[in-house]
């Protein structure tokens, strides 16, 4: 089930809220777990069992890790738990990729098992690993399997993050407060995230689809495509994170931020401090620092950086373009770390342009079907292949999506929020905003419902004629 759907908004969510708030305090985690299993099972009924087995194994190893923490056995338990979790992820996500690559390298044809990827496995596997390692590092193991399961399977962040670390949330699992203020914050955040997804990301997706379907490519069209991809990815992903954080707040949880206006970054280093923060910090804390981090020589640091970014790219998808995408960022980060970062600080405006110009092709590479397709698309940005500068379709799309792009660019910066904050701080503005806020939120929800309802628009072919 996805947040941006009628079944979620008008069936699951109200029923879930009713169940959760009707339950006494001691039953709330059980209610949350039940809802989460239904939420997950809705799209992937057979993989509920896989997740349950993963949680049970992690729970057992967590207790053992804690018990034998000071001994080699504790380390062994921790390693075993991580290995089991990773083995599930590797099997379901990477088997076909490894076999395809083996065939490509050796020429020996290997039948592909075509393993289907369980939704959210990349996210919950990282949460399971974080739990085990946090326990090994001294965090108290969770005695209640129900609480652990509620943490791992918690539906707001199960499918698309943020990757909530166990130590951030362990206390909230047993003791959390609910208030109108926190719930209202959650409602605002959820509606904002839903708007990002439905009103911006989905419309930008239409522009992307129009480009992909077009046989009339042009340089302008390639740039529109790249810009739309970049904005779509941001609004889609950060929209989901906003919804997850908002839902968490409604249920009394405080999740960490996952995005912080990444496109205003003045360096690639800063961009990665603002983009998918929970993944970046996860790799920093569980891979980069254990490998030695910055406390080792330059050569080793270089290796560590490339290892982390190879893994970051590979985590995003089992394909070479994701690996290439991760390694490109490794290269850029190394260049910035040891040479460029100090120099570009003096030219802030140019630094922004530099970041955006690098990010644009990076998202083309990220979304490409293959490295070759990415090379062709990136080449198209610069007129490679003799594509014309403009085409009628590109001009039409620019016109049709101009406002969406404009709103997208503005909404990717903190300025609209800052303006709203300033208005809110004045006496009249504050009163107006207080009065208007519920109306605006309700209107937004209705408009988004309209977009969802219209999404099933599917006229019978005959009626075209």
């Amino acid at each position, binding site marked *: *089930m996805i947040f941006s*759907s*009628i*079944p979620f*908004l*008008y*069936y699951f*969510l*109200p*029923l879930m*809220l009713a169940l959760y708030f009707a339950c006494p305090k001691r039953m709330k985690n059980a209610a949350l777990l039940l809802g989460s299993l239904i939420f997950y099972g809705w*799209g*992937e*009924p*057979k993989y509920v069992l896989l997740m349950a087995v993963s949680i049970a194994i992690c729970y057992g190893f967590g207790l053992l890790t804690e018990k034998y923490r000071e001994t080699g056995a504790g380390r062994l338990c921790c390693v075993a738990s991580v290995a089991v979790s990773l083995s599930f992820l590797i099997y379901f996500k990477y088997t076909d990729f490894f076999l395809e690559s083996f065939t490509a390298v050796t020429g020996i044809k290997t039948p592909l098992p075509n393993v289907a990827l369980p939704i959210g496995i990349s996210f919950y596997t990282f949460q399971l690993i974080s739990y085990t390692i946090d326990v090994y590092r001294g965090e108290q193991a969770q005695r209640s399997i129900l609480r652990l399961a509620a943490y791992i399977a918690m539906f707001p962040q199960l499918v698309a993050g943020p990757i909530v670390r166990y130590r951030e949330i362990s206390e909230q699992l047993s003791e959390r407060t609910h*208030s*109108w*203020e926190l*719930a*209202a*914050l959650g*409602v*605002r955040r959820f*509606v904002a995230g839903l708007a990002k997804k439905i*009103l911006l990301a989905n*419309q930008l997706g239409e522009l992307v689809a129009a480009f992909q379907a077009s046989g*009339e490519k042009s340089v302008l069209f390639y740039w529109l495509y790249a810009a739309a991809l970049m904005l779509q990815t941001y609004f889609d992903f950060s929209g989901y994170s906003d919804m997850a954080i908002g839902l968490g707040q409604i249920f009394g949880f405080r999740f960490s931020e996952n995005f912080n206006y990444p496109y205003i970054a003045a360096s690639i280093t800063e961009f990665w401090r603002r983009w998918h923060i929970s993944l970046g910090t996860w790799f920093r804390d569980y891979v980069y620092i254990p490998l030695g981090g910055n406390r080792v020589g330059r050569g080793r640091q270089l290796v560590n950086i490339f290892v982390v970014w190879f893994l970051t790219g590979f985590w995003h998808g089992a394909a070479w373009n994701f690996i290439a995408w991760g390694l490109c960022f490794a290269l850029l980060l190394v260049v910035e770390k040891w040479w460029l970062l100090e120099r570009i600080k003096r030219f802030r405006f140019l630094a922004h342009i530099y970041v955006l110009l690098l990010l644009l092709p990076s998202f083309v590479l990220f979304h490409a079907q293959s490295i070759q397709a990415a090379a062709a698309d990136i080449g198209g940005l610069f007129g490679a292949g003799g594509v014309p500068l403009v085409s*009628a*379709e590109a001009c*039409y799309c620019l*016109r*049709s*999506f101009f*406002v*969406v792009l404009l*709103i997208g660019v503005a909404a990717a910066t903190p300025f609209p929020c800052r303006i709203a904050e300033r208005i809110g701080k004045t006496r009249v503005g504050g009163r107006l905003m*207080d009065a208007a*806020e*519920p109306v605006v*939120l*309700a209107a937004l*929800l*209705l*408009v988004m*419902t*309209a*977009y*969802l*309802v*219209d*999404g*099933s*628009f*599917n*006229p*019978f*072919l005959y*009626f*075209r*004629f």
Partner: protein
Amino acid sequence: MGVHGKSRRVCMLLGALLFGGLLLCVLLPKDEYSDSERRALASMPQLSAKAVASGRFMEDFEAYATDAFPFRDSFRALKALTADGIFLRADNHGIYETDGFLSKLEYPMNPASLQRAADRFHMICDTYLTEENRVFLSVIPDKNCFLAKESGHPCMDYAQFEREMARRADFAQYIRISDLLERDDYYRTDTHWRQERITDVAGRLAEAMGAVLSSDYELRTLEQDFYGVYHGQAALPLAPDSLCYLTGEAIGRCTAYDWQNERKIPVYDLARAQGKDPYELFLSGPLSLVTVENPDAPADRRLVIFRDSFASSLAPLLVSGYAKITLVDIRYIHPGSLGRLVDFEGCDVLFLYSTLVLNHSETVK
């Protein structure tokens, strides 16, 4: 009001919308058919362990929940208005409005589709026709031809389209009619042309094929409003069209037969005009094989029209010049089976197609 009150108000309002929505979803009766979209709506799927385990129940429920959402048409209108008025989108699902006319984007020209159509027509000629048959081709431009350029929407080069089609189907004599048409010859909310405004088109075609038509028509207008296919697709609150038809003595004496369902049909099917698609007024809508016979015309004047739905409204205007007109829609009948159904001997043959079909000839069998 303090922070607490404000927060409470926000939560209560959004909660009321979600819970209200749930109640309406569950309690309100569901439509089985969407008149505006002209399609059957998804129904509540059967709940079974097998359907749940396979995920089919959930998939079908998502379609049902969206299709059965209360006030569906109003929400679709809200979406169309938001896309149009706030996001200034130039089209909604490919449908755009300009000067009160709705049209669907048709771009770019698909040469492979034109070739496929020409190949199918060629195959028919090779299979069924002799040198005695005279073969004609005419292309009906869709509404974009008159709307798209001015409103800034991408537009095919219709002159080139006609040239390309005439070149690819050079076994037929091309009859140009596009110069006789203009925007107002089409319904504002529908794909098709208005019968009462295409008598000149019928005259041009008949003249080129050597037939003489009567121009004695009586204009009749149906009482009910005509909301064309684009009206429902656009979901914009636009005024309806009026549906008119031309009748007269010659047309009145004609008999029509639907060979697909083996039944007599009226030339103007007033019962169908009350149905889901009022354009089915003309020769009862989409049928694979229809004949119209005129007892007053010379017996040797016979015409076979390979056609799409545009010809349904044109054919009655041609009947005064022919003893028999056979209308064949090879989107619904395979051309291979025509030998036992249609007598081509001594007939003129007209391939009359809109650019909409020619540019998507995968629909042609």
